[in-house]
Protein backbone atom coordinates (compact mmCIF):
# COMPACT_ATOMS: atom_id res chain seq x y z
CA UNK A 1 0.00 0.00 0.00
CA UNK A 2 1.42 3.37 -0.88
CA UNK A 3 1.17 6.40 1.31
CA UNK A 4 -1.39 7.94 -1.04
CA UNK A 5 -3.57 4.83 -0.93
CA UNK A 6 -3.37 4.71 2.84
CA UNK A 7 -4.30 8.37 3.15
CA UNK A 8 -7.26 7.88 0.82
CA UNK A 9 -8.34 4.57 2.33
CA UNK A 10 -10.92 5.69 4.86
CA UNK A 11 -13.38 8.43 4.03
CA UNK A 12 -14.67 10.55 6.88
CA UNK A 13 -17.87 9.41 8.49
CA UNK A 14 -21.34 10.68 9.04
CA UNK A 15 -22.13 10.80 12.72
CA UNK A 16 -25.54 10.57 14.34
CA UNK A 17 -26.15 11.15 18.03
CA UNK A 18 -29.67 10.07 18.91
CA UNK A 19 -31.36 10.98 22.20
CA UNK A 20 -28.28 10.57 24.40
CA UNK A 21 -28.71 11.09 28.15
CA UNK A 22 -26.09 10.71 30.86
CA UNK A 23 -26.29 11.28 34.61
CA UNK A 24 -23.31 11.17 36.94
CA UNK A 25 -23.78 10.22 40.57
CA UNK A 26 -21.04 11.39 42.89
CA UNK A 27 -21.88 10.81 46.53
CA UNK A 28 -25.25 12.44 47.10
CA UNK A 29 -25.04 14.68 44.03
CA UNK A 30 -26.66 13.78 40.75
CA UNK A 31 -25.41 15.72 37.78
CA UNK A 32 -27.61 15.54 34.73
CA UNK A 33 -24.78 16.01 32.25
CA UNK A 34 -26.71 15.26 29.06
CA UNK A 35 -30.44 15.35 28.49
CA UNK A 36 -31.75 13.69 25.31
CA UNK A 37 -29.13 15.22 23.05
CA UNK A 38 -29.57 14.69 19.32
CA UNK A 39 -26.99 15.83 16.80
CA UNK A 40 -26.28 15.04 13.17
CA UNK A 41 -22.87 15.65 11.66
CA UNK A 42 -22.15 15.24 7.95
CA UNK A 43 -19.08 13.71 6.34
CA UNK A 44 -16.17 16.08 6.50
CA UNK A 45 -18.06 18.64 8.53
CA UNK A 46 -16.35 20.73 11.19
CA UNK A 47 -18.73 21.14 14.14
CA UNK A 48 -17.92 23.12 17.27
CA UNK A 49 -19.71 22.45 20.55
CA UNK A 50 -19.82 25.56 22.69
CA UNK A 51 -21.12 26.19 26.17
CA UNK A 52 -20.12 27.11 29.70
CA UNK A 53 -18.31 24.55 31.83
CA UNK A 54 -20.58 21.82 33.12
CA UNK A 55 -22.92 21.89 30.13
CA UNK A 56 -22.02 18.34 29.11
CA UNK A 57 -20.16 19.11 25.91
CA UNK A 58 -17.07 17.18 27.03
CA UNK A 59 -19.29 14.34 28.23
CA UNK A 60 -20.87 14.14 24.78
CA UNK A 61 -17.41 13.99 23.24
CA UNK A 62 -16.44 11.16 25.58
CA UNK A 63 -19.65 9.31 24.71
CA UNK A 64 -18.86 9.62 21.02
CA UNK A 65 -15.30 8.50 21.74
CA UNK A 66 -16.70 5.44 23.49
CA UNK A 67 -14.97 6.33 26.76
CA UNK A 68 -18.33 6.91 28.50
CA UNK A 69 -21.42 4.78 28.08
CA UNK A 70 -24.65 6.79 27.83
CA UNK A 71 -27.62 5.93 30.06
CA UNK A 72 -29.94 6.28 27.09
CA UNK A 73 -29.64 6.84 23.38
CA UNK A 74 -27.22 5.71 20.68
CA UNK A 75 -24.36 7.04 18.65
CA UNK A 76 -24.00 5.83 15.08
CA UNK A 77 -21.05 6.26 12.75
CA UNK A 78 -22.33 5.67 9.21
CA UNK A 79 -25.27 3.78 10.64
CA UNK A 80 -23.23 1.45 12.86
CA UNK A 81 -23.64 1.85 16.62
CA UNK A 82 -20.40 2.42 18.50
CA UNK A 83 -19.23 -0.07 21.11
CA UNK A 84 -16.36 1.32 23.15
CA UNK A 85 -13.37 3.27 21.93
CA UNK A 86 -12.07 2.58 18.45
CA UNK A 87 -9.46 3.90 16.09
CA UNK A 88 -12.14 5.22 13.70
CA UNK A 89 -12.70 7.98 16.30
CA UNK A 90 -9.51 9.59 17.59
CA UNK A 91 -9.46 12.02 20.49
CA UNK A 92 -7.28 15.04 21.20
CA UNK A 93 -7.35 16.13 24.83
CA UNK A 94 -6.81 19.49 26.48
CA UNK A 95 -3.49 18.32 27.89
CA UNK A 96 -1.57 16.84 25.02
CA UNK A 97 -1.55 13.40 26.76
CA UNK A 98 1.61 12.54 24.87
CA UNK A 99 3.64 9.69 26.33
CA UNK A 100 6.79 11.13 27.90
CA UNK A 101 8.64 7.81 27.66
CA UNK A 102 8.45 7.94 23.85
CA UNK A 103 9.91 10.50 21.46
CA UNK A 104 7.81 12.46 18.94
CA UNK A 105 8.06 9.82 16.23
CA UNK A 106 7.14 6.92 18.53
CA UNK A 107 4.20 8.86 19.94
CA UNK A 108 2.83 9.29 16.43
CA UNK A 109 3.57 5.62 15.75
CA UNK A 110 1.66 4.43 18.83
CA UNK A 111 -1.76 4.28 17.19
CA UNK A 112 -0.32 3.24 13.84
CA UNK A 113 1.38 0.19 15.36
CA UNK A 114 -2.05 -0.96 16.52
CA UNK A 115 -3.53 -0.57 13.07
CA UNK A 116 -3.58 -3.82 11.10
CA UNK A 117 -2.97 -4.17 7.38
CA UNK A 118 0.17 -2.06 7.14
CA UNK A 119 3.82 -3.03 7.06
CA UNK A 120 6.15 -1.30 9.49
CA UNK A 121 7.79 0.58 6.65
CA UNK A 122 4.40 1.95 5.60
CA UNK A 123 3.59 2.91 9.18
CA UNK A 124 6.84 4.82 9.45
CA UNK A 125 6.13 6.58 6.17
CA UNK A 126 2.67 7.61 7.36
CA UNK A 127 4.05 8.83 10.70
CA UNK A 128 6.67 10.95 8.92
CA UNK A 129 4.00 12.39 6.64
CA UNK A 130 1.92 13.60 9.59
CA UNK A 131 4.88 14.92 11.56
CA UNK A 132 5.75 16.85 8.42
CA UNK A 133 2.13 17.99 8.01
CA UNK A 134 2.17 19.62 11.46
CA UNK A 135 5.55 21.16 10.67
CA UNK A 136 7.68 19.31 13.20
CA UNK A 137 9.98 17.24 10.97
CA UNK A 138 12.99 18.81 12.66
CA UNK A 139 11.75 17.44 15.99
CA UNK A 140 11.08 13.89 14.84
CA UNK A 141 13.21 12.36 17.57
CA UNK A 142 12.87 15.06 20.21
CA UNK A 143 11.77 14.18 23.73
CA UNK A 144 8.30 15.39 24.68
CA UNK A 145 9.46 17.64 27.53
CA UNK A 146 11.65 19.55 25.10
CA UNK A 147 8.63 20.78 23.15
CA UNK A 148 6.61 23.92 23.81
CA UNK A 149 2.90 23.70 24.59
CA UNK A 150 1.93 24.48 21.01
CA UNK A 151 4.35 21.93 19.60
CA UNK A 152 2.98 19.29 21.95
CA UNK A 153 -0.53 19.89 20.65
CA UNK A 154 0.78 19.65 17.10
CA UNK A 155 2.27 16.26 17.92
CA UNK A 156 -1.02 15.26 19.55
CA UNK A 157 -2.82 16.29 16.35
CA UNK A 158 -0.41 14.25 14.24
CA UNK A 159 -0.82 11.27 16.58
CA UNK A 160 -4.60 11.50 16.42
CA UNK A 161 -4.68 11.78 12.64
CA UNK A 162 -2.00 9.21 11.83
CA UNK A 163 -4.22 6.08 12.04
CA UNK A 164 -6.57 7.87 9.64
CA UNK A 165 -9.67 8.04 11.85
CA UNK A 166 -13.03 8.75 10.30
CA UNK A 167 -13.90 11.25 13.00
CA UNK A 168 -11.57 13.49 14.97
CA UNK A 169 -12.76 14.52 18.43
CA UNK A 170 -11.05 17.52 19.99
CA UNK A 171 -11.66 18.42 23.63
CA UNK A 172 -10.58 22.04 24.19
CA UNK A 173 -7.20 21.25 22.67
CA UNK A 174 -5.96 24.84 22.62
CA UNK A 175 -7.36 26.05 25.96
CA UNK A 176 -4.06 25.81 27.80
CA UNK A 177 -2.02 27.67 25.16
CA UNK A 178 -1.08 31.34 25.01
CA UNK A 179 -3.00 33.55 22.58
CA UNK A 180 -0.26 33.85 19.98
CA UNK A 181 0.40 30.11 19.78
CA UNK A 182 -3.32 29.51 19.63
CA UNK A 183 -3.73 31.82 16.63
CA UNK A 184 -0.98 29.96 14.83
CA UNK A 185 -2.68 26.66 15.52
CA UNK A 186 -6.03 27.96 14.20
CA UNK A 187 -4.25 28.55 10.92
CA UNK A 188 -2.57 25.14 10.99
CA UNK A 189 -5.73 23.29 11.88
CA UNK A 190 -7.68 24.96 9.08
CA UNK A 191 -4.94 24.16 6.57
CA UNK A 192 -4.76 20.53 7.71
CA UNK A 193 -8.53 20.18 7.73
CA UNK A 194 -8.70 21.53 4.15
CA UNK A 195 -6.12 18.94 3.18
CA UNK A 196 -7.53 15.90 4.99
CA UNK A 197 -11.27 16.79 5.24
CA UNK A 198 -11.91 14.85 8.44
CA UNK A 199 -15.19 15.03 10.26
CA UNK A 200 -14.22 17.06 13.31
CA UNK A 201 -16.11 17.63 16.53
CA UNK A 202 -14.43 20.37 18.46
CA UNK A 203 -15.37 21.24 22.04
CA UNK A 204 -14.55 24.69 23.36
CA UNK A 205 -15.87 27.38 25.66
CA UNK A 206 -14.30 30.05 23.50
CA UNK A 207 -17.04 31.40 21.21
CA UNK A 208 -14.67 33.23 18.89
CA UNK A 209 -12.57 30.09 18.48
CA UNK A 210 -15.71 28.17 17.57
CA UNK A 211 -16.75 30.76 15.00
CA UNK A 212 -13.26 30.74 13.53
CA UNK A 213 -13.04 26.99 13.05
CA UNK A 214 -16.52 25.55 12.62
CA UNK A 215 -18.88 25.11 9.70
CA UNK A 216 -21.49 24.95 12.39
CA UNK A 217 -21.52 26.02 16.03
CA UNK A 218 -23.76 24.09 18.41
CA UNK A 219 -24.70 25.88 21.60
CA UNK A 220 -25.09 23.95 24.85
CA UNK A 221 -26.58 25.08 28.14
CA UNK A 222 -26.09 23.38 31.51
CA UNK A 223 -28.32 21.79 34.20
CA UNK A 224 -29.30 19.64 32.44
CA UNK A 225 -26.92 19.64 29.46
CA UNK A 226 -28.96 20.37 26.36
CA UNK A 227 -28.46 21.65 22.85
CA UNK A 228 -30.07 25.09 22.63
CA UNK A 229 -29.28 26.54 19.26
CA UNK A 230 -27.21 26.05 16.16
CA UNK A 231 -25.39 28.63 14.04
CA UNK A 232 -24.00 28.23 10.54
CA UNK A 233 -20.78 30.08 9.84
CA UNK A 234 -20.75 30.63 6.08
CA UNK A 235 -17.43 32.52 6.01
CA UNK A 236 -14.75 31.44 3.51
CA UNK A 237 -11.57 29.76 4.73
CA UNK A 238 -8.91 30.35 5.82
CA UNK A 239 -10.49 32.54 8.46
CA UNK A 240 -8.69 35.07 10.58
CA UNK A 241 -9.75 35.06 14.22
CA UNK A 242 -9.43 38.86 14.30
CA UNK A 243 -11.63 39.62 11.27
CA UNK A 244 -14.71 41.79 11.66
CA UNK A 245 -17.08 39.35 9.91
CA UNK A 246 -16.06 36.66 12.30
CA UNK A 247 -16.53 38.98 15.25
CA UNK A 248 -20.12 39.60 14.15
CA UNK A 249 -20.90 35.89 14.17
CA UNK A 250 -19.15 35.46 17.51
CA UNK A 251 -21.12 38.34 19.02
CA UNK A 252 -24.39 36.83 17.86
CA UNK A 253 -23.50 33.44 19.40
CA UNK A 254 -22.30 35.11 22.60
CA UNK A 255 -25.55 37.02 22.94
CA UNK A 256 -27.55 33.83 22.53
CA UNK A 257 -25.33 32.04 25.04
CA UNK A 258 -25.86 34.74 27.66
CA UNK A 259 -29.58 34.64 27.06
CA UNK A 260 -29.73 30.90 27.68
CA UNK A 261 -27.56 31.24 30.76
CA UNK A 262 -29.88 33.85 32.22
CA UNK A 263 -32.86 31.66 31.44
CA UNK A 264 -31.35 28.66 33.23
CA UNK A 265 -30.35 30.77 36.24
CA UNK A 266 -33.95 31.87 36.83
CA UNK A 267 -35.22 28.33 37.20
CA UNK A 268 -33.50 26.78 40.20
Amino acid sequence: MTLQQELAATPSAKLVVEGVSKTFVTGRDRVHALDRVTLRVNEGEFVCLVGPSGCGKSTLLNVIAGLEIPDEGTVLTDGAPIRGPGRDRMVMFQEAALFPWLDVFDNVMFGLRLKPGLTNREREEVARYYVHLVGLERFLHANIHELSGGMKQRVALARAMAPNPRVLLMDEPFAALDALTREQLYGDLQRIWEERRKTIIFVTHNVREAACLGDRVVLFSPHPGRIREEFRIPLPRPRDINSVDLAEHATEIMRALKGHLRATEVQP
Partner: protein
Amino acid sequence: MKRLITALVFFAALLVAWQLVYNARIWSPVLVPSPKSVALYLWENTFKPGDGAGGANPNRWQLFFAVGITLKRLLAGYFIGLAAGIPLGMITARFRPMRDTLGVLALGLQGLPSVCWVPLALLWYGQTEAAMLFVVVMGTVWSVVLATEAGVRNVNPIFVRAARTMGSRWLHVWVKVIIPASLPFIVSGMKQGWAFAWRSLMAAEIFVSILTGFGLGQLLHYGRELNAMDQVVGIMFVIVFIGLLADKVFFSPWERFLHRRWGTG
Protein backbone atom coordinates in the same frame (compact mmCIF):
# COMPACT_ATOMS: atom_id res chain seq x y z
CA MET B 1 37.76 16.33 35.01
CA LYS B 2 37.49 18.95 37.73
CA ARG B 3 34.98 16.76 39.55
CA LEU B 4 37.35 13.80 39.36
CA ILE B 5 40.20 15.86 40.84
CA THR B 6 37.96 17.12 43.65
CA ALA B 7 37.01 13.54 44.49
CA LEU B 8 40.62 12.34 44.36
CA VAL B 9 41.80 15.16 46.63
CA PHE B 10 39.01 14.38 49.08
CA PHE B 11 39.83 10.68 49.33
CA ALA B 12 43.58 11.33 49.49
CA ALA B 13 42.97 13.71 52.40
CA LEU B 14 40.88 11.06 54.13
CA LEU B 15 43.71 8.56 53.74
CA VAL B 16 46.28 11.01 55.09
CA ALA B 17 44.05 11.77 58.10
CA TRP B 18 43.76 8.06 58.78
CA GLN B 19 47.54 7.61 58.63
CA LEU B 20 48.04 10.57 60.99
CA VAL B 21 45.58 9.14 63.49
CA TYR B 22 47.41 5.82 63.29
CA ASN B 23 50.80 7.51 63.78
CA ALA B 24 49.56 9.39 66.84
CA ARG B 25 48.97 6.03 68.57
CA ILE B 26 45.96 7.29 70.48
CA TRP B 27 44.37 3.87 70.08
CA SER B 28 45.97 0.48 69.97
CA PRO B 29 46.87 -0.78 66.44
CA VAL B 30 44.55 -3.69 67.18
CA LEU B 31 41.66 -1.23 67.13
CA VAL B 32 42.92 1.18 64.49
CA PRO B 33 44.95 -0.64 61.84
CA SER B 34 47.27 1.25 59.54
CA PRO B 35 46.19 1.91 55.94
CA LYS B 36 49.20 -0.16 54.91
CA SER B 37 48.11 -3.26 56.84
CA VAL B 38 44.64 -3.06 55.31
CA ALA B 39 46.12 -2.68 51.83
CA LEU B 40 48.38 -5.63 52.56
CA TYR B 41 45.44 -7.75 53.65
CA LEU B 42 43.61 -6.90 50.43
CA TRP B 43 46.71 -7.67 48.34
CA GLU B 44 47.38 -11.00 50.08
CA ASN B 45 43.81 -12.14 49.61
CA THR B 46 43.53 -11.16 45.98
CA PHE B 47 46.46 -11.13 43.55
CA LYS B 48 49.60 -11.92 45.59
CA PRO B 49 51.07 -15.01 43.88
CA GLY B 50 53.50 -16.53 46.47
CA ASP B 51 53.79 -16.72 50.26
CA GLY B 52 57.28 -15.11 50.17
CA ALA B 53 59.11 -18.37 50.95
CA GLY B 54 58.82 -19.96 47.54
CA GLY B 55 55.46 -21.64 48.16
CA ALA B 56 52.09 -20.65 46.67
CA ASN B 57 49.87 -18.13 48.49
CA PRO B 58 47.07 -20.19 50.03
CA ASN B 59 44.84 -17.12 50.34
CA ARG B 60 45.23 -16.02 46.72
CA TRP B 61 41.87 -15.12 45.08
CA GLN B 62 40.10 -15.72 48.40
CA LEU B 63 38.33 -12.34 48.30
CA PHE B 64 37.14 -12.91 44.76
CA PHE B 65 35.62 -16.22 45.74
CA ALA B 66 33.91 -14.55 48.69
CA VAL B 67 32.59 -11.75 46.46
CA GLY B 68 31.36 -14.34 43.98
CA ILE B 69 29.50 -16.30 46.64
CA THR B 70 27.98 -13.17 48.13
CA LEU B 71 26.87 -11.78 44.75
CA LYS B 72 25.33 -15.11 43.78
CA ARG B 73 23.20 -15.07 46.94
CA LEU B 74 22.43 -11.39 46.52
CA LEU B 75 21.31 -11.63 42.89
CA ALA B 76 19.24 -14.76 43.50
CA GLY B 77 17.37 -13.13 46.37
CA TYR B 78 17.11 -9.79 44.61
CA PHE B 79 15.63 -11.17 41.42
CA ILE B 80 13.17 -13.35 43.30
CA GLY B 81 12.21 -10.20 45.22
CA LEU B 82 11.68 -8.27 41.98
CA ALA B 83 9.80 -11.10 40.28
CA ALA B 84 7.41 -11.28 43.20
CA GLY B 85 7.33 -7.61 44.18
CA ILE B 86 6.59 -5.96 40.83
CA PRO B 87 3.47 -8.03 39.98
CA LEU B 88 2.25 -7.83 43.57
CA GLY B 89 2.66 -4.06 43.46
CA MET B 90 0.62 -3.86 40.27
CA ILE B 91 -2.17 -5.97 41.70
CA THR B 92 -2.11 -3.94 44.91
CA ALA B 93 -2.43 -0.72 42.96
CA ARG B 94 -5.37 -1.96 40.91
CA PHE B 95 -7.63 -3.63 43.47
CA ARG B 96 -8.74 -1.77 46.54
CA PRO B 97 -9.16 -4.91 48.73
CA MET B 98 -5.54 -5.79 47.94
CA ARG B 99 -4.45 -2.30 48.92
CA ASP B 100 -6.28 -2.57 52.24
CA THR B 101 -4.68 -5.94 53.00
CA LEU B 102 -1.45 -6.65 51.19
CA GLY B 103 -0.65 -2.95 50.94
CA VAL B 104 -0.81 -2.51 54.69
CA LEU B 105 1.17 -5.69 55.25
CA ALA B 106 3.86 -4.48 52.84
CA LEU B 107 4.03 -1.12 54.56
CA GLY B 108 4.42 -2.78 57.97
CA LEU B 109 6.99 -5.34 56.91
CA GLN B 110 9.00 -2.78 54.99
CA GLY B 111 9.50 -1.00 58.29
CA LEU B 112 10.84 -4.16 59.87
CA PRO B 113 14.68 -4.10 59.77
CA SER B 114 15.64 -7.12 57.71
CA VAL B 115 18.03 -8.43 60.34
CA CYS B 116 14.91 -9.18 62.38
CA TRP B 117 14.11 -11.97 59.91
CA VAL B 118 17.34 -13.80 60.78
CA PRO B 119 16.19 -15.57 63.98
CA LEU B 120 13.03 -16.73 62.23
CA ALA B 121 14.95 -17.90 59.18
CA LEU B 122 17.44 -19.78 61.35
CA LEU B 123 14.66 -21.62 63.18
CA TRP B 124 12.80 -22.44 59.97
CA TYR B 125 15.67 -23.37 57.70
CA GLY B 126 18.66 -23.91 60.02
CA GLN B 127 22.16 -22.98 58.93
CA THR B 128 21.43 -23.24 55.21
CA GLU B 129 21.52 -21.27 52.00
CA ALA B 130 17.73 -21.21 52.10
CA ALA B 131 17.82 -19.22 55.33
CA MET B 132 19.95 -16.53 53.69
CA LEU B 133 17.86 -16.47 50.54
CA PHE B 134 14.75 -16.04 52.65
CA VAL B 135 16.21 -13.08 54.52
CA VAL B 136 17.30 -11.36 51.29
CA VAL B 137 13.92 -11.87 49.63
CA MET B 138 12.10 -10.50 52.68
CA GLY B 139 14.44 -7.52 52.71
CA THR B 140 13.82 -6.77 49.02
CA VAL B 141 10.24 -7.55 48.21
CA TRP B 142 8.26 -5.09 50.33
CA SER B 143 9.93 -1.91 49.16
CA VAL B 144 9.55 -3.10 45.56
CA VAL B 145 5.84 -3.78 46.14
CA LEU B 146 5.32 -0.31 47.60
CA ALA B 147 7.27 1.53 44.90
CA THR B 148 5.48 -0.32 42.10
CA GLU B 149 2.13 0.36 43.68
CA ALA B 150 2.92 4.07 43.98
CA GLY B 151 4.12 4.11 40.38
CA VAL B 152 1.03 2.46 38.94
CA ARG B 153 -1.30 4.61 40.99
CA ASN B 154 0.46 7.75 39.83
CA VAL B 155 0.03 7.01 36.14
CA ASN B 156 -1.91 9.90 34.68
CA PRO B 157 -5.33 8.43 33.73
CA ILE B 158 -5.29 10.47 30.54
CA PHE B 159 -2.46 8.28 29.20
CA VAL B 160 -4.68 5.23 29.53
CA ARG B 161 -7.66 7.01 27.96
CA ALA B 162 -5.54 8.22 25.07
CA ALA B 163 -4.17 4.72 24.53
CA ARG B 164 -7.64 3.21 24.59
CA THR B 165 -8.90 5.59 21.93
CA MET B 166 -5.98 4.46 19.76
CA GLY B 167 -7.15 0.87 20.02
CA SER B 168 -4.99 -0.30 22.92
CA ARG B 169 -6.58 -3.03 25.07
CA TRP B 170 -5.78 -4.24 28.53
CA LEU B 171 -2.56 -6.29 28.12
CA HIS B 172 -1.28 -3.79 25.58
CA VAL B 173 -2.24 -0.95 27.93
CA TRP B 174 -0.23 -2.57 30.73
CA VAL B 175 2.83 -3.36 28.69
CA LYS B 176 2.96 -0.23 26.55
CA VAL B 177 1.47 2.42 28.83
CA ILE B 178 1.14 1.65 32.52
CA ILE B 179 4.52 -0.05 33.00
CA PRO B 180 6.54 2.52 31.03
CA ALA B 181 4.62 5.34 32.71
CA SER B 182 5.43 4.02 36.17
CA LEU B 183 9.03 3.15 35.32
CA PRO B 184 10.58 6.07 37.22
CA PHE B 185 8.90 4.81 40.38
CA ILE B 186 9.72 1.18 39.66
CA VAL B 187 13.39 1.96 39.07
CA SER B 188 13.71 3.89 42.32
CA GLY B 189 11.97 0.96 44.03
CA MET B 190 14.45 -1.41 42.44
CA LYS B 191 17.29 0.74 43.67
CA GLN B 192 15.90 0.80 47.18
CA GLY B 193 15.28 -2.94 46.97
CA TRP B 194 18.90 -3.45 45.98
CA ALA B 195 20.11 -1.48 48.99
CA PHE B 196 17.83 -3.46 51.29
CA ALA B 197 18.89 -6.78 49.75
CA TRP B 198 22.53 -5.86 50.32
CA ARG B 199 21.92 -4.96 53.96
CA SER B 200 19.86 -8.09 54.60
CA LEU B 201 22.46 -10.36 53.07
CA MET B 202 25.26 -8.90 55.18
CA ALA B 203 23.17 -9.40 58.30
CA ALA B 204 22.36 -12.94 57.22
CA GLU B 205 25.96 -13.81 56.42
CA ILE B 206 27.20 -12.50 59.73
CA PHE B 207 24.68 -14.58 61.65
CA VAL B 208 24.40 -17.68 59.49
CA SER B 209 27.77 -19.39 59.37
CA ILE B 210 27.64 -22.34 57.04
CA LEU B 211 30.08 -24.47 55.08
CA THR B 212 28.44 -24.03 51.66
CA GLY B 213 30.57 -20.98 51.01
CA PHE B 214 32.20 -18.09 52.80
CA GLY B 215 30.73 -14.78 51.73
CA LEU B 216 31.93 -11.30 52.63
CA GLY B 217 29.74 -11.17 55.73
CA GLN B 218 31.25 -14.39 57.01
CA LEU B 219 34.78 -13.10 56.44
CA LEU B 220 33.80 -10.01 58.35
CA HIS B 221 32.50 -12.15 61.17
CA TYR B 222 35.68 -14.24 61.36
CA GLY B 223 37.76 -11.09 61.22
CA ARG B 224 36.13 -10.10 64.46
CA GLU B 225 36.59 -13.58 65.99
CA LEU B 226 40.30 -13.45 65.17
CA ASN B 227 40.68 -9.84 66.30
CA ALA B 228 41.98 -9.13 62.79
CA MET B 229 41.04 -5.50 62.33
CA ASP B 230 42.87 -5.26 59.00
CA GLN B 231 40.55 -7.95 57.68
CA VAL B 232 37.44 -6.30 59.10
CA VAL B 233 38.27 -2.92 57.59
CA GLY B 234 39.47 -4.48 54.33
CA ILE B 235 36.18 -6.36 53.88
CA MET B 236 34.24 -3.21 54.68
CA PHE B 237 36.11 -1.48 51.87
CA VAL B 238 35.15 -4.25 49.49
CA ILE B 239 31.48 -4.01 50.51
CA VAL B 240 31.43 -0.24 50.02
CA PHE B 241 33.18 -0.62 46.68
CA ILE B 242 30.64 -3.14 45.38
CA GLY B 243 27.77 -0.90 46.46
CA LEU B 244 29.26 2.08 44.62
CA LEU B 245 29.98 -0.02 41.55
CA ALA B 246 26.41 -1.33 41.38
CA ASP B 247 25.08 2.19 41.61
CA LYS B 248 27.41 3.65 38.99
CA VAL B 249 27.24 0.77 36.53
CA PHE B 250 23.69 -0.39 36.86
CA PHE B 251 21.36 2.22 38.33
CA SER B 252 22.90 5.58 37.39
CA PRO B 253 22.81 5.12 33.61
CA TRP B 254 19.23 3.97 33.80
CA GLU B 255 18.20 6.88 35.97
CA ARG B 256 20.04 9.32 33.72
CA PHE B 257 18.21 7.92 30.72
CA LEU B 258 14.84 8.30 32.46
CA HIS B 259 15.62 11.84 33.58
CA ARG B 260 16.61 12.83 30.07
CA ARG B 261 13.52 11.29 28.53
CA TRP B 262 11.06 12.64 31.05
CA GLY B 263 12.84 15.93 31.58
CA THR B 264 12.98 15.50 35.32
CA GLY B 265 15.97 16.47 37.44
